[in-house]
């Protein structure tokens, strides 16, 4: 669906569940347990909402993204909690268009291809319309 619309994902917070190495964090073999604890505390899902917002805002600006898309995962509360709040705050801070889709990683009952396609198309057309002013 992204390919059809000519859209490219330049950055994703989902890959940061495994740790924020891009911000400079490294494990220290001399302090293995301490840095493991720091790693766990610093990964995306263990951030509080203001920290997540700041991290996402930085990403959006660094990658000069046209917008950002949030996929609400029904069965992942740690990732999905507060997403609408994050969306509003990011919109107001960056001025970029936020999109919102809902599905699930494992449960096909929560996935509707037509519904997601409709929302994505609407979202990309909205971004385009905004871009044209």
């Amino acid at each position, binding site marked *: 669906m992204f390919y059809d619309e000519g859209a490219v994902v330049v950055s994703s917070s989902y890959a940061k569940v495994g740790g924020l190495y891009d911000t400079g964090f490294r494990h220290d073999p001399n302090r293995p347990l301490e840095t493991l604890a720091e790693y766990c505390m610093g990964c995306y899902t263990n951030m509080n909402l203001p920290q997540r917002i700041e991290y996402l805002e930085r990403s959006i600006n660094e990658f000069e993204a046209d917008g950002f898309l949030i996929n609400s995962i029904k069965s992942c509360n740690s990732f999905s909690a507060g997403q*609408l709040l994050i969306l*509003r705050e990011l*919109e107001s801070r960056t001025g970029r*268009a*936020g999109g*919102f889709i*809902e599905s699930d990683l494992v449960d096909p009952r*929560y*996935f*509707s291809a037509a*519904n997601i*396609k*409709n*929302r994505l*198309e*609407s979202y990309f*057309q*909205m971004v385009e*319309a*905004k871009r044209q*002013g």
Partner: protein
Amino acid sequence: MDCYVGIDLGSTTTKSIYMTPDEKILGRGITNSRSNYALACEVASDEAEINSRFNLLRDRLTSVERERDNAEKMMNWLECRFRLAQHLAQVDALEEECHGIVKEWPDEAVQCEYDAALDTIFSAMREQARRMFQPAETARSDFFRDIAASHYLESAEAIAQNNSLSFDRLTGIYDRAILAVEGKNFSSGYHECLEFACAETVSRAGFEGKRGIIREATQYAAEVEFNVLNTIGTGYGRQTLPFPKHQIRSEILCHGLGAHFMFPETRTVLDIGGQDTKAIQVDEQGIVTNFQMNDRCAAGCGRYLGYIADEMSMGVHELGPLALKARKAVRINSTCTVFAGAELRERLAVGERREDILAGLHRAMILRAMSLLARSGGIRDQFTFTGGVAKNQAATLALGRLVNENYGERKINISPDSIYTGALGAALFAKRDQRGDLVNVDLSKLKKQVS
């Protein structure tokens, strides 16, 4: 005459708008979507063209007839009799299909009995139609399928009782035949229907001296050629049309722009259609800045009302007026189409009044929409309510109350033509983006491409 066309292929109805280059609406067309989107698109477009011609005819008659009231009366008769001609053409086709089905039966004696019954039924249907398509009468539905079903079943029930025929068998004939009739376009015979409408109107008392004026005006409107500069398709079924990608727009963008066109101060739009509910935020240009829509579950959408109407053996148009007679709103916990049916029966069983239950159902439906509105960024002034459900007065009443409770005073806009909002937005996009490959598109050819 140059024009732009917007088509909104909804899950329940398909709408079309013809618009002039200076953004004046020429005409509107609507039909039920049936199971064939390409045909529905063709019919809606033809209906919009017919409506455009009638609007031109109205302007012409008003300009040549000194008495404005008289021009309006002539127009009313012309329109009603035009609709009658369209209706009768479909009744003829339906009768032919019904007799064709009976002809397939093995027993000739049974065939004769049912053929005779059908003759009586269709004769009664034609009489009912002639009474119905008059200026003072209002139909419960605009669609042939609904009107014909109501008339056919009414006569069939009486005949089955009086002649010991099977009502179920007569119903079965109708159910098969209507599918075949709905597979054809009866909106393309403008000239034949107009000829009939003219003849019927000029023969009416009071219009004898107006024959020349009516003939001249109808001829003028019939001869106008529409030069379609661009067409844009939108709506639930838009993917099924072989329109190039740049001639398809999301209905969210179209509803936003359409609502902005009707009410320029609009900042928040709620659209409740047959299968989905959309909460849309727009800027001062009508460009969408944010939206939320229901996930895959269509609870609380127009179809929910249709299901409740079926459960209560009522027409969907009757729900709102009945709910307005409520003395209280019974608490309904679910807007799930399946659970609500069970809850409805449970409430009836414990003795709640139908009016009060319906008021509760409408409130439950709007509560769900309120949650989507909150997620999209709340309700800003002005707030425009669109889609088929905006015609339901009980839904608009519940919406007004909940908006006031949660957001304070907001100006709520509801247009009588709100059902055309998506098609209107599509027509505006057609004007703004003139890369159209569908210039002067022959929609009848789309059917072949789709199949």
